[in-house]
C-alpha cells in the first residue's frame, strides 16, 4: 500500500490522473474503519489533508463556496451556522466531537451513504458539487451526483473540490431519529425549508431511499406535505429499523419540522 500526499490542488489532480484507482482520504472517519477491519486494502491512498485549497469557505461570484475539507465542527460555527442553519444542526448530530473534528462535507459526499447527515441539508438549499480533474472542473446538482447507495457520479480521475450554495436565508431545520443523541447512524432524517420567498416547501430525507432525494410542494400545500414526503420515500427494512417505521417517522418529522419553521 502506498500513501501519496500532494501539497497542492494541481498536484492532487495530477496524482489522481496517474492513479485513478487511488482512494482519497481527508478526515478518514469512513476509510479508517475499512482499513482497521481489513475490509479494504487499496493499492494507493491519496492523502488530501495537506491540500490547502480544499479547506475553508468563501464567496465566489455571488455563491457561497464550501471547501470539501470543511469539517462538521466548522459547519456548526458562525458564520456558517447562520447561513446554513439546517447543515449546522445536522453536523451537530454527526458522531461525537472527535468525529465532527475530522469528518468532512466532501467525505460525506464522496461516501454517498443514504444516511449521510450533511446531504439532506445541502439538498434543500440547492447545493451543487464541484468536481475536478486534470481535464477541467464541472458542477453537478446533488440529484446528478448521488446515484445510489455509496455510489456517486465522480469519474475515476476526479476529486470533489467543494460545494456551491446560494443560501436561501429561509426558515429551515434538520431532524434525525436514532437511539441516542450522539454516535448514531440515522434511522431516518429530514431537512426542511419553508421558503416564503419562492413560495415553496422543500424537504429531503436520509436513510429512507437508495440515494437522498428532494421533495417539493407549493407553500399552500403545507397540510398535505407530511404525506407527500412519506410517500416519496422508498425505505427498506434493515438492522436500524423497518420500512414502515421509517415512513411513519418521516411523516411525523415533516409535521414537526413545519411547526418549527413556522414558529
Amino acid at each position: 500500500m502506498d500513501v501519496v500526499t500532494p501539497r497542492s490542488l494541481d498536484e492532487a489532480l495530477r496524482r489522481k490522473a496517474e492513479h485513478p484507482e487511488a482512494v482519497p482520504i481527508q478526515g478518514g472517519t469512513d476509510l479508517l474503519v475499512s482499513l482497521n477491519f481489513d475490509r479494504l486494502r487499496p493499492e494507493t491512498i491519496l492523502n488530501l489533508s495537506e491540500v490547502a485549497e480544499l479547506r475553508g469557505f468563501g464567496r465566489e461570484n455571488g455563491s457561497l463556496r464550501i471547501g470539501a475539507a470543511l469539517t462538521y465542527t466548522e459547519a456548526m460555527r458562525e458564520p456558517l451556522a447562520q447561513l446554513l442553519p439546517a447543515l449546522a444542526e445536522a453536523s451537530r448530530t454527526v458522531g461525537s466531537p472527535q468525529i465532527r473534528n475530522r469528518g468532512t462535507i466532501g467525505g460525506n459526499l464522496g461516501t454517498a451513504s443514504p444516511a449521510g447527515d450533511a446531504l439532506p441539508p445541502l439538498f434543500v438549499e440547492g447545493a451543487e458539487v464541484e468536481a475536478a480533474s486534470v481535464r477541467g472542473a464541472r458542477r453537478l446538482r446533488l440529484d446528478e451526483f448521488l446515484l445510489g447507495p455509496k455510489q456517486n457520479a465522480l469519474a475515476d480521475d476526479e476529486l470533489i473540490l467543494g460545494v456551491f450554495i446560494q443560501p436561501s436565508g429561509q426558515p429551515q431545520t434538520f431532524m434525525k431519529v436514532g437511539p441516542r443523541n450522539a454516535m448514531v447512524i440515522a434511522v431516518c432524517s429530514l431537512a426542511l425549508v419553508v421558503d416564503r420567498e419562492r413560495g415553496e416547501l422543500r424537504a429531503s430525507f436520509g436513510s429512507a431511499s437508495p440515494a437522498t432525494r428532494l421533495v417539493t410542494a407549493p407553500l399552500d400545500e403545507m397540510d398535505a406535505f407530511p404525506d407527500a414526503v412519506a410517500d416519496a420515500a422508498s425505505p427498506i427494512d434493515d438492522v436500524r429499523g423497518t420500512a414502515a417505521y421509517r415512513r411513519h417517522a418521516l411523516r411525523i418529522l415533516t409535521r414537526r419540522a413545519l411547526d418549527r419553521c413556522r414558529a
Partner: protein
Amino acid sequence: MKVELTVNGERLDTDIWSGESLLTTLRDRLGLPGSKNACEQGECGSCSVLLDGTLVCACLVLAAQADGHEVVTVEGLADDGNLHPVQEAFAEAGAVQCGFCTPGLVVATADLLQRNADPSDDEIREALSGNLCRCTGYQKILDAVHLAAGR
C-alpha cells in the same frame, strides 16, 4: 514508510506500515499505551488524543496523515510527574472504575475545559458523548469534570 511526528513535545521518527492508524503507531511503535485500543471505529473514544490541538480518535487518523504534525496523548498531560488537574479530579471524585475509558475521557475533558472553563451538565454530556464508560460511571465522571473546572 517513515514518518516524523512530534509527540508530547518530542520529535520522533518511526517506520510505519502505510495503512496503519495513528493509534497503532503510538501504542505499538512508540511505546505509548495510554491511548487505549478498543473499538477501532471511532465509537468508544478511548483512543482520544489531540492532533495539532484538535480532539480526535487516534484510531481514525491514518498515521501517514500525522506526518509532520503534533500529537498530545494522555501521557503528555502530566507535568514533570505532577498529575494534570483533570487527572487529579478524576482520581479524587472516584471517576475511575476499571480505568479503560479514563485516558480518553481525561484527554476529552482537558480539551473541553480549555475551550469552556465552566461547562454546564449538558455541555459536558455533549462534549463527552463520544467517550463510552463500560462501567457506566458517568455521574462520577460529571462530578470530576465540575471539580476540575472549579480549579
